[in-house]
């Protein structure tokens, strides 16, 4: 039995509209008749709503309707007073988002200042950031990453959609491992690249050691 694509579209439309939170394809599949082409339905629906007052977007891998960004001026009553993040917290959040998984020491190395107690706490409490795991290095430091709530808040489908992330990576600015031989005496006593294994293993630590040994 084939399912009318228009019917699939209508069902998805109704479900997403009624739901209180974004729905994944799997969530939708559970409700729709078997055999419905959900991916196609979502694509059709997104095209249909393009440029309308409400739009279909993907956030954190799930789908939701939201009002068009250019109509924000209308929403004076719906707007909630946002909890303002301090400058330090914003910077920390950006570093975690772009460098994750990242340890506290690495955050501090980028900022050049010690993270004050409250900064990470606020982000953890707001649920924008979570502890992800531990780095496999001596001391096994805890690593931090962003949550789905972060993606939902900023309307991002995936982490690859972070603004400018591709350019930054291409420029080598997202590597936590500085080029070998790094030895700027840091006032804070933090030397990234010395005790850190590279995150993705794209720069072999042996090389850095050999280089140091030669001099």
């Amino acid at each position, binding site marked *: 039995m084939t399912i009318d694509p228009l019917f699939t579209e209508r069902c998805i439309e109704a479900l997403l*509209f*009624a*739901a*209180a*939170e974004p*729905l994944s394809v*799997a*969530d939708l599949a*559970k409700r729709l008749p078997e055999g419905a082409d959900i991916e196609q339905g979502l694509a059709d629906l997104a095209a249909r709503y393009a440029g309308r007052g409400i739009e279909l977007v993907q956030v954190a891998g799930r789908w*939701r*309707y*939201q*009002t*068009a*960004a250019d109509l*924000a001026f209308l*929403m004076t009553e*719906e*707007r*909630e007073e*946002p909890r303002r993040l301090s*400058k*330090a917290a*914003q*910077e920390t*959040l*950006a*570093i975690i*988002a*772009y460098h994750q998984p990242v340890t506290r020491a690495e955050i501090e190395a*980028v*900022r*050049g*200042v010690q993270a004050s107690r409250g900064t990470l706490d606020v982000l*953890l*409490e707001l*649920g924008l950031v*979570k*502890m992800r795991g531990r780095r496999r290095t001596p001391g096994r430091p805890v690593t931090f990453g962003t*949550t789905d709530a972060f993606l*939902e*808040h*900023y*309307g*991002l489908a995936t982490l690859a959609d*972070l*603004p*400018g992330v591709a350019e*930054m990576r291409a*420029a080598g*600015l997202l590597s936590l491992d*500085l*080029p070998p*031989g790094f*030895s*700027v*005496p840091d*006032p*804070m006593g933090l030397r990234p690249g010395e005790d850190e294994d590279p995150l993705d293993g794209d720069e072999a630590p042996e090389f850095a050691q050999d280089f140091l040994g030669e*001099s």
Partner: protein
Amino acid sequence: MSTGFQPTLDFEAANAAAEDGAALVIDIDGYEGPLHVLLALARSQKVDLLQLSITKLAEQYLAFVQQARRVRFSLAADYLVMAAWLAYLKSRLLLPKPERPKAEEPPAEEMAAQLAFRLAKLDVMRKAVEALKDQPILKRDVFMRGDPEAVKIVSSTRFEGDLYALMTAYITQRKREHGRHYAPRPPQAYPLEDARDRLRGLLPEMADWTTLSGVAPVDQHEEDPDGPSPASYLASTLAASLELVKEGVLEARQMQAFSDIYLRTRTEPLEALA
């Protein structure tokens, strides 16, 4: 946004100021650390951060620290350490290169390049903050359904809770555990002295045989839950009565084991009995 120094907003003014050494409106609180100051200074050079002139930067930074110390005497140590290091790096960059570089010390150019790289990294993160702010933010620019219908579609295998919540849950309990003290209250006993005094006072009324339980104070547990138990009243009264018997002012008798004990004021002196 603070009203602090914003070289990107006013390049020309900042640049001109940089020339005559008045680069910064001194605002120590506006800068979180030496790197943030360096970045602000570096931006005013209007060049690619990686091509930055470290000697010029060092000069400006030293001037900044000088002036900042005038404004705030207790300038943070990090600022001064960075100043000393920059002065050192600048001198090494300016001095003619030794023929054989000292071991353990990377070339000055490399150190300068590393600093430039760090500044570029910090700069890109600050730009990322701005870029994130320009995203359509939920409840600021875009809004979800104001009145979702009652159906909630949430997969049951998903549950809420992250590591932070787990740690918090653990610590709150351990703290509670430490706050809990076991302080057993020693049972209140009816003092023997009180029992003796009371019994002595009762002597004139005890011409006839009276049961011990009739003589002991009645249970006051209702009014005073922490007070002595009925058993304690009885026991102390018995002990006191035995003492009074020994003194010869009281008679006691019991028909058989476990039966009632009767007390009566002794009328004949003890010597007569003997």
